[in-house]
């Protein structure tokens, strides 16, 4: 399967006589960024030894009671605000009852009919404009523990470190239509939550997972088709692969005159296929009811307003500001705001430097460097301050763009002050016209044959002369000046 070759904005599945639209909704499970769990004081730190972060509450010992972690509640409300969503002033924790070895209580505390956050929206930036994706709800729930089946052939081992960790389940409306939209939606959600500091968005550590709901319908149909839910997909790439497989599977069934069964499916990442986990008939009856150990959550307006006051500038606002204030293109603004650390870096650089040059250097050289070294911008080997200095040296003509690239490479190793590098390596640009004229004269004298050809109309040779001058100057000649002088002398 080749995801890239498809026309990603107009994703559809074509068969001989029919074209199908794919309708996608996501239930994203985002781990709340919090030191301790939703109903206990155990640590949530990733990667600890199994069963070392488990309290009596997490392991459901007799007589143990959940106590709400206020911080997690605030995190969920902040996320709701970031999703432009309605904050429900009263919400209720329910018990979702089912048996599993890694679910110590025999129920998961979740929110069913009265979630903490109601309807909201997320804006996607598509090449042909913005698209608004509806949010159905956001609710809080506990994570289960982890069953480990591959340590022992006979037994399953259970690690309860995750048991009780706070998750936000963010349910979208079935508004997504393509693999690219899914990609942008997940990235946007992650970006918003990182801005808010409510979820670290780390998919490798399982901080962000999704259940994917997919249905297909013939192009132009108004009614939604029967959907299947693919459980627990943990990367954007796998989501896209699963959706593409599943949509095609459904289309194949419909093309053969069959009907889609509503069911829950699993995505096998090794075989790249989805397979049935349970049908609607076998669906669990979770026997939801309000958890009598917990009082309903009730917020005052003051509580919500206080949180609203402390919401930072979010990507959409920031983008608008970057476009208006810094005259960036929407494309550039998007790139720079999508990650909060990138936007911070950018704003730090432009505080002292030219905006246009800064934008180019960050989205060009710096991104390439980070990409190559597989680093987050927060771990950038070049500080914003030093990059800003480098840009200023280009701007005032101290060095050429080309030299700057060499300096940049040196900086990438040890984050040195570019001014010092230039002085130590003698890379300062030669901008004295008299000195440059001498070099130009030398080049002309030594290449009389080429001069003749040039004058006969071989314009391309101009580059040759520039190159020779640069070579002799050790790359330090001010290219603009060299051009001017050459043009004059070769007339």
């Amino acid at each position, binding site marked *: 399967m080749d995801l890239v070759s498809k026309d990603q904005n107009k994703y559809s599945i074509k068969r001989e006589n029919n074209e199908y639209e794919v309708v996608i909704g996501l239930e994203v499970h985002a781990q709340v960024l919090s030191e301790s769990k939703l109903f206990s004081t155990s640590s949530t730190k990733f990667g600890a030894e199994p069963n070392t972060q488990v309290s*009596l509450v997490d*392991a*459901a*010992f*007799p*007589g*143990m*009671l*959940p*106590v*709400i972690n206020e911080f997690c509640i605030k995190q969920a409300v902040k996320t709701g605000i970031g999703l432009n969503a309605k904050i429900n002033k009263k919400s209720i924790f329910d*018990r979702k*009852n089912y*048996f*599993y*070895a890694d679910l*110590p*209580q*025999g*129920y998961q505390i979740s929110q069913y009919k009265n979630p903490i956050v109601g309807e909201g929206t997320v804006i996607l930036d598509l090449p042909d404009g913005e698209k608004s994706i509806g949010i159905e709800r956001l609710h809080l729930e506990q994570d289960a523990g982890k069953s480990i089946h591959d340590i022992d052939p006979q037994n*399953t081992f*259970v690690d309860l470190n995750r048991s009780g960790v706070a998750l936000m389940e963010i349910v979208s409306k079935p508004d997504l239509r393509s693999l690219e939209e899914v990609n942008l939606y997940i990235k946007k959600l992650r970006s918003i939550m990182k801005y808010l500091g409510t979820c670290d968005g780390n998919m490798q550590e399982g901080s962000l997972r999704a259940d994917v709901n997919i249905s297909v319908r013939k192009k132009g149909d108004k009614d939604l088709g029967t959907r299947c839910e693919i459980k627990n997909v943990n990367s954007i790439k796998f989501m896209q692969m699963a959706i593409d497989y599943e949509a095609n599977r459904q289309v194949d069934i419909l093309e053969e005159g069959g009907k889609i069964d509503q069911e829950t499916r699993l995505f096998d990442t090794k075989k790249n296929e989805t397979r049935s986990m349970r049908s609607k008939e076998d669906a669990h*009856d979770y*026997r*939801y*009811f309000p*958890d*009598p*150990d*917990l*009082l309903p959550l009730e917020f005052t307006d003051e509580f919500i307003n206080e949180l609203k006051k402390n919401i930072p500038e979010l990507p959409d606002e920031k983008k608008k500001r970057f476009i208006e204030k810094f005259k960036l293109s929407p494309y550039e603004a998007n790139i720079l705001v999508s990650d909060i650390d990138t936007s911070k870096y950018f704003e730090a650089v432009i505080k002292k430097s030219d905006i246009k040059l800064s934008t180019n250097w960050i989205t060009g050289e710096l991104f390439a460097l980070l990409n190559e070294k597989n680093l987050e911008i927060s771990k950038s080997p070049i500080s914003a301050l030093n990059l800003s200095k480098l840009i200023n040296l280009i701007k005032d003509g101290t060095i050429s763009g080309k030299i700057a690239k060499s300096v940049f490479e040196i900086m990438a190793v040890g984050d040195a002050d570019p001014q010092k590098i230039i002085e130590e390596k003698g890379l300062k640009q030669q901008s004295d016209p008299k000195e440059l004229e001498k070099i130009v004269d030398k080049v002309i004298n030594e290449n009389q044959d080429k001069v003749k050809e040039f004058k006969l109309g071989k314009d391309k040779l101009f580059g040759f002369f520039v190159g020779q001058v640069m070579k002799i100057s050790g790359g330090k000649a001010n290219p603009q000046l060299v051009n001017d002088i050459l043009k004059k002398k070769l007339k």
Partner: protein
Amino acid sequence: MTNITDLTLTELVNKIKKKEVSSREITNAYVNRSEKSKKLNTYITDNFENALKKASDFDNNPNYEKKLPGIPIAVKDLFCTKDVKTTAGSKILNNFIPTYESTVTENLWKEGSILLGKLNCDEFAMGSSNETSFFGNVQSPIGKNLVPGGSSGGSASALAAKLTPATIGTDTGGSIRQPASFTGTVGLKPTYGACSRYGIVAFASSLDQAGPMTGNVKDCSLLFDVMCSYDIKDSTSVNFKRKNYFKELNNSIKGKKIGIPKEYRVDGMSKEIEDLWQKGINIIKDSGAEVIDISLPNTKYALPAYYIVAPAEASSNLARYDGVKYGFRSEGKNLIEMYENTRSKGFGDEVKRRIMIGTYVLSSGYYDAYYLKAQKVRKLIKNDFDEVYKKVDAILTPSTPSSAFTIGEKSNDPVSMYLNDIFTVPINLAGLPAISIPGGHDSKGYPLGLQIIGKTFDEQNIINIAYAMENQINFKNQIKDWWI
């Protein structure tokens, strides 16, 4: 000198404070009498050796400032006690030793009390006769083969038989008041939220409350004073201003308005219960209080609503006993089979019955018709009480529709058994406090209890009314130590 075990809790506290008796002597007396009383089957786990050691420790380093200095107390085996086996009367927890202490028992130990042992109870507090316990039924000291009531049957029996100077129980639908009534003792079910539920094996979370069980009302006020505390570890614990219930105890009843609800005059109510109730009404009148006829119109729906809400919560609360983490496990070929074997063998019939009822009423398609409707009924019942409390300060009713029955008499008829809770469950559904005090004896000489129901967090008021009535009733238990 009178027998130590014949003294009341407050008498023991006074004597120990006056250094007339040591903690060791008191503990020894209760241990000895308990050792001689195995026939009653009140203890599931005794802590005698350790209690004696702790009593000596107390005597060597006494602190008479405490409210229960060096006083041994046995508690219902539903309270988790650190390093002492806690079974909830069930096979599924028959090997469970908590590493933690319930808040209520912790409050006792903090005030100088010493754990004497863990008392028998109906399995997971589900029962009204103590016959559902995995550890066998309990005999009532009142008469051979008589049930002590339930679910706090071991507590009531041990208290009445003077195997402990006081005890604590839990009350979900009458589990303190009904056994108190059956054994001629005093039992208080506090307002929901008054005592912490932390560390108490849960039956029905929205109804469970711990409370004191004592020989008289004064002891009740002292023990409640010690037990009752706000606890951040229980989200349903209420942070209201708690009184010093013992110091503020008085017998002023004059001028108080006491309601008599007509709906408690149920069909087929025995003459003896009628007479008992009338006796209570007369005492109230004679004491200068005003008796007011009231109506609690939704009372008849309380029992059915209770038998939906309580099993529903229980079915979920008991899901954690699955053989995976602690307690009894019966192996199976796979996880599901292990669950089935463990829970089939680990739970008794009554517990299974309630898990099934609870699972059923919460099932999709039935939830609205049962659980949701029961919750609405619950609200109506609460409204009934709120309405009458505009006119009265407290309510007087019988505690139970009959005196104690014999072992086996009702064990095959769950509905008849459930009907025993008819006067007590509405109070749990409404979250109100109520105290049962001995009101007299029936023709067989078995005790009968009177229940005084109060307003939310108005325990002091009903304790004081009970104190005044107790004085007039002058009840004496007729226990002849038949088992020794």
